[in-house]
């Protein structure tokens, strides 16, 4: 018995060893594989999230090495130069760990404890979750290190003062990861997270006070600091609120840069090219669901028909002549445009909204919508700054703001001159 049991034990033991020995190496490799997979997956997710945050857009100069920084951002507070965030030890963030990175993205503090300027939109990125932040960091670590030291910021006094920045933060910076609203759908929550967090739409679409603090977080529109563009309200039905658009139309504008009613231009076209066009259908749809829910409804009381004074009528008639000569070919006799190719001007809120800045800029500088997978060969608008004088540009913009049922204030040659300037 003993023997047999001994033999039994022995053979059991052997079996276990054999089985274990036989399984061990495949198990080990499977485990290692699983770990590696999740690393690779994490990096891939990080790459996607970095797109959603458009980190590369700011941290790369025109034609420069990706993520090596050096892009200059002009603001009323001075000129910021984006840092190198490739994993180079000396000039980049090669010595950072994921905690350092979290401190930067979530709290706006650099590795050395310095408060970062909100030209880095950590005021929005603070909503990003820790796993998402870790994935972005893993992705940045996987990039080839680039040795590139960038020039320092040139910040005007008194804004170059850390104590002042500290005060600014206590007043305008609300740290905190996004908290889902359980009463809303998953899509809505995902959209909210992306729009208010990584998408940092607030960075441009929120009115700013003289301190660069946002006056509210409602994305009610404002002139973008240090650029020459007006970012329209994403709430008001008179600007870019989309409560009356279908989800498909909103999604199309965000992912391709153009739809039947509207087209993205200037900095918004750049955001679509660099960031939004790469987002998944689900994420774009989620953003559309959230944006649609934000929009206020249009005031339904009909506008009183106006009687135009004769002088105004004459001024606008001059604009009509300019329109027929230069613009009608593309935008149509009745401002109807060609959907998806040339934007309609009739009923187009980019034309009629209170600030005429963007409409004037379109005429001065022209532009192409972004080349995206959904619209790879866009049609363009010529720049007229050298071909039509300011008084006639003022007339034609006044005309398109008041023709075909449009209603907007008149534009003067001084308005045209004040709209000049570009980052180029």
């Amino acid at each position, binding site marked *: 018995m003993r023997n047999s049991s001994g033999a039994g034990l022995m053979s059991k033991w052997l079996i276990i060893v054999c089985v274990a020995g036989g399984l061990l190496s495949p198990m080990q490799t499977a485990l290692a594989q699983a770990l590696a997979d999740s690393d690779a997956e994490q990096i891939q997710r990080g790459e996607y999230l970095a797109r959603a945050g458009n980190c590369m857009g700011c941290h790369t100069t*025109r034609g420069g090495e990706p993520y090596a920084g050096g892009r200059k951002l002009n603001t009323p507070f001075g000129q910021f130069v984006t840092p190198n965030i490739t994993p180079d030890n000396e000039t980049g963030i090669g010595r950072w760990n994921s905690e350092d990175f979290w401190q930067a993205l979530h709290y706006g503090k650099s590795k050395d404890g310095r408060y970062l300027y909100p030209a880095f939109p950590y005021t929005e990125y603070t909503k990003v979750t820790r796993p998402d932040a870790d994935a972005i960091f893993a992705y940045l670590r996987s990039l080839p290190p680039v040795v590139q030291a960038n020039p320092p910021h040139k910040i005007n006094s008194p804004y170059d003062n850390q104590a002042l920045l500290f005060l600014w933060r206590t007043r305008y910076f609300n740290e905190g990861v996004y908290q889902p609203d359980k009463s809303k759908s998953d899509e809505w929550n995902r959209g909210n997270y992306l729009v208010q967090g990584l998408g940092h739409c607030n960075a441009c679409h929120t009115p700013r006070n003289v301190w660069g603090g946002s006056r509210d977080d409602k994305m009610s529109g404002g002139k973008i600091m240090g650029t020459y563009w007006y970012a329209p309200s994403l709430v008001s039905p008179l600007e870019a609120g989309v409560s009356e658009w279908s989800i498909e139309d909103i999604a199309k504008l965000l992912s391709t840069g153009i739809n039947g009613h509207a087209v993205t231009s200037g900095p918004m076209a750049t955001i679509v090219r660099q960031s939004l066009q790469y987002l998944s259908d689900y994420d774009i749809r989620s953003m559309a669901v959230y944006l649609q829910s934000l929009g206020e409804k249009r005031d339904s009381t009909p506008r009183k028909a106006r009687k135009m004074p004769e002088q105004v009528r004459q001024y606008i008639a001059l604009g009509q002549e300019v329109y027929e000569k230069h613009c009608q070919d593309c935008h149509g006799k009745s401002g109807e445009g060609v959907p998806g190719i040339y934007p309609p001007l009739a009923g187009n809120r980019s034309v009629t909204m209170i600030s005429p800045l963007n409409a004037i800029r379109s005429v001065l500088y022209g532009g192409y919508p*972004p*080349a995206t997978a959904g619209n790879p060969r*866009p049609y363009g*608008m010529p720049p007229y700054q050298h071909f039509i004088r300011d008084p006639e540009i003022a007339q034609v913009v006044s005309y398109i703001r008041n023709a075909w049922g449009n209603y907007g204030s008149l534009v003067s040659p001084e308005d045209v001159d004040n709209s000049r300037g570009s980052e180029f």
Partner: protein
Amino acid sequence: MKFFAFILLAMISALVSAAEPASSAISDTLEERVKPCIICHRDADLIDRDAYFPRIAGKPAGYLYNQLRNFRDGRRYYQPMAILLENMSDEYMREIADYFASLPYVYPQPVVPALSPAETKSVETLMYSGDPERDLPACSACHGEKLMGVQPAIPGLLGLPHAYLAAQFGGWRNGGIMRGQTPDCMSEIAKKLTQEEVNALVQWLPGLPVSGQLAGADALAPELAQRCRTILSGKEMAR
């Protein structure tokens, strides 16, 4: 700047053309898509001889493509074009370059330059013999025997406005305004010329009638191709 404003004013009248009847269907062509370019880069017969806008029709495709990338990526500076190209892809710019390269071009009539016989002689020497002492190859060694360019990335020198030529040499020589990649064979050559030589050659070139064709790539000696390798390799630069 004043000079520029003057040219532009002069062009305003020329470019105000009558509208064609609005067509309901927009043609799905590059011709339609490059309308914004044509406002400046029109046919020669509409361009004032002194106009600053260079011809682009019929230039080598690789050269045009390189320039479009240079403007977009900040290696060559001209604000209106930087704005237009800001959100274009490499693929789309390649198509646009091919389109302009394939267009025939109506050349302007030559303008007789006001140069002394001695000046003319010295320009001709530069053009066709170069100056080995200063390590200056003949212009024709790179730009083709007929100065009509060499495939795929060296442009011809004929039919270009005087003001444009002068500005290009200014850009290369002063280094203040970037033009193209650096280091770049053409900027290196432009810096070796004297101001007198530049003044003379930018007058001399518009005096030649345009004739002959773009030469094949094999017209370029290997050592010269080597000298221009950054440009010729068409290195894809990251955006």
